[in-house]
């Protein structure tokens, strides 16, 4: 049989238009949940707002809520009004609403004939061509049954993609089990494990900063960098998620995914290109090389009562859904090493916590001091080491702290910050992480999603840090809400002759 060869389209050349996704039907399990309302539906609205979705698509919400299509649409309309970054426009909403449907069902319906029939019907009425995206916005215990049911009900035509929210397991063993289960039905390239931090513009900008600027890479190593500090701070408490959080804790909720991904992006070698496999290969090498030197180098904490923005707030153990004698950590600080040629003996200090004084995610690269500044000691009092500070949220941008002479007689040196804020240099508003990630999945681009081996390496490291905690009972609470964490976290750096960045 001869194959028909279609000539390349000469008319497509030079069209500066991003390839639109192919037609698709997106099924959201957990459609009445918080994530759908706060993030997913506003993100889908923004994609429609910018004309980034194809004409042929449909979205099918699935949850146990009893509701008809119209009721579901009304809920989602309000969610978009409340949470979208774009102005609400009725014409844009109608484009989305007329492709939005709802099925009342629990997880056991994942592979059911009724659901399959509804999706087949959407293929007919909305031209979605049998292409399926399943978004699992559900609690972890529901993953297994849904994945199994979906796997057993796979269609022969069209492609299938599965988007999975964290946490992907609760330790290395369960993470592996989940990977094995999912791989039983889906190829790795069909699985999109979301870590929404990777969808943030500033996180991606770090790769551009490192690999598109010739000035940074030559000094991005142990010779010039004294240490790295990564902070993921929240001023909020558990905000009604006490049940979930009390079983999870900061280590599993933030360190296992967001923080280790940030360390990996900071420390990785240059990938050969920006394709999914190349980037993820380099990240996983860093994760394999990462270790913490011992239990003394991991600090944990739990907040007690305190003040946030002048208002009194309860301690963690007084929060709804939290056990009154809970030993769950709301704060983690740790020293990590990356054992490779570039980073040997260079500490990466990480810290994350709830009810800290402010919301902030930053990566601070602290360079070594100038070897022999030819100034009087008194003149250098205001001089601190150079720090390249990457702000991930809330004020996305990069700043560099440099020493400068204070104008006037003699030599007096002060540290000044040179700031580049994203909003001050580019006209476009920053897309929400979920917009970018959903669109990437629809386009089949897995670069910003976490691969199975990355997840397992992250769990292996977290398990090693958690193991000593099984033996020692903590003295909680050990930091007041509105402060920068427990004394043991400060001690962790003080032992090394360093301190956390000043705020």
């Amino acid at each position: 049989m001869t194959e028909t060869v279609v000539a390349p389209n000469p008319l497509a050349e030079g069209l500066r238009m991003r390839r639109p996704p192919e037609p698709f039907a997106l099924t959201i399990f957990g459609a009445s949940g918080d994530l759908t309302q706060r993030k997913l539906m506003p993100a889908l609205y923004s994609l429609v707002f910018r004309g980034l979705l194809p004409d042929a698509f449909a979205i099918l919400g699935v949850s146990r809520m009893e509701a008809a299509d119209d009721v579901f649409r009304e809920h989602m309309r309000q969610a978009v009004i409340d949470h979208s970054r774009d102005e609400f426009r009725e014409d844009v909403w109608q484009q989305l609403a007329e492709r939005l449907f709802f099925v009342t069902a629990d997880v056991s319906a994942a592979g059911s004939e009724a659901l399959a029939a509804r999706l087949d019907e959407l293929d007919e009425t909305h031209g979605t061509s049998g292409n399926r995206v399943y978004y699992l916005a559900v609690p972890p215990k529901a993953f297994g049954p849904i994945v199994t049911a979906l796997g057993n009900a796979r269609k022969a035509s069209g492609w299938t993609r599965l988007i999975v929210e964290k946490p992907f397991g609760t330790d290395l063993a369960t993470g592996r089990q989940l990977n094995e289960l999912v791989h039983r039905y889906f190829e790795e390239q069909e699985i999109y494990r979301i870590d929404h931090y990777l969808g943030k513009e500033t996180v991606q900008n770090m790769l551009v900063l490192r690999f598109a600027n010739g000035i940074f890479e030559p000094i991005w190593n142990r010779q010039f960098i004294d240490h790295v500090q990564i902070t993921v701070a929240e001023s909020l408490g558990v905000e009604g998620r006490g049940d979930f959080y009390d079983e999870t804790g900061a280590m599993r909720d933030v360190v296992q995914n967001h923080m280790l991904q940030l360390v990996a992006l900071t420390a990785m070698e240059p990938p050969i290109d920006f394709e999914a496999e190349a980037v993820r290969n380099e990240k996983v090498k860093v994760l394999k090389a990462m270790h913490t030197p011992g239990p003394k180098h991991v600090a944990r904490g739990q907040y007690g009562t305190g003040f946030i923005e002048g208002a009194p707030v309860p301690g963690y153990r007084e929060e709804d859904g939290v056990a009154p004698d809970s030993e769950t950590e709301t704060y983690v600080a740790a020293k990590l090493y990356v054992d490779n040629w570039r980073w040997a003996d260079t500490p990466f200090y990480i810290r994350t916590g709830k009810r800290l004084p402010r919301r902030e995610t930053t990566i601070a690269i602290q360079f070594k001091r100038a070897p022999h500044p030819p100034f009087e000691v008194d003149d250098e009092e205001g001089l601190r080491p150079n720090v390249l500070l990457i702000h991930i949220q809330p004020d996305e941008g990069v700043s560099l702290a440099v020493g400068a002479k204070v104008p006037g007689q003699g030599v007096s040196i002060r540290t000044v910050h040179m700031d580049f804020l994203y909003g001050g240099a580019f006209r476009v508003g920053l897309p929400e992480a979920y917009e970018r990630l959903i669109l990437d999945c629809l386009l089949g681009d897995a670069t910003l999603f976490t691969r199975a081996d990355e997840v397992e390496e992250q769990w292996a490291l977290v398990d090693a840090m958690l193991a000593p905690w099984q033996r020692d009972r903590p003295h909680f609470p050990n930091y007041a809400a509105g402060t920068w964490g427990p004394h043991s976290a400060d001690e962790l750096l003080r032992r090394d002759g360093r301190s956390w960045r000043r705020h």
Partner: protein
Amino acid sequence: MATSLRELERELTELRAASADPGGPPRMRASVMTHIAWVPEQWVEAATGTLAGLAERHPSRTILLFPRPDDPQDVLEGEVDFRCFVRGGEQREVCSEVISLRLCGRRAAAPASVVTPLLVSDLPVFLRWRGPLPFGASELDQLVEVADRLIVDSREWPDARADLARLAELFDRIAVSDIAWARTQRWRAAVSDLWPDVAEASVLKVAGPFMEALLLQSWLGARLRRDVRLEHQPAGEIELVEVDSRAAHPTRRDAATSSDLLSDQLELFGRERIYEEAVRSFSPQQT
């Protein structure tokens, strides 16, 4: 009132300092380009309207040049403006500097010597030329030398065929953007979606402005390496494109304002080879 570049720079510095919070540090300037606009008398209103929607999108220095060659005095007159726009209630600001200069008398003949001292170092320079291009004129040649990208709107040209034919002379000297070409973008994408059914196309029917129709015709002919006959129906904007009676269906999009169109061009850096190919292949004999 006559002024000097030094005086204007001093005023800008004062405005920048005055815009800082009381007792706070001076504002940092985060520019991404210098934007020069050459605005003859009859284009002043249109240019001002476009600029009004542009300043808050691009942190830049904009230099508006208003040539007044018939003015009896050989002087520079001008004003400066420094504006910061806070966006969406966020703690972010986009700051833009606007320098408006009237080049009176013989000063209009040497615009490069006026703008060169005002360029922001090491950043790209975009030149928006309002109205028809005076090919061979010294003012155009001078500004082409200092700019990286020339932005025109060929819809503003009275003699479309002749001007398009001469535009190709500039391609090896400066990257060129044409806003009329940008308006055809989604229609070109829609025609591209008709591939391969239009591989042997011979007739292009366009209801829209004549210049856009010409550009679509020359693009299609150049890409397919074929003679394509144009059937044109005048209209204010492109309303219909058919290739051999196959209708092109562009994606939905709101009407772009003149600020949107210029703004998009200010984000391009490289040469537009496909546009150049279309313009180069353009021949006054083709219809």
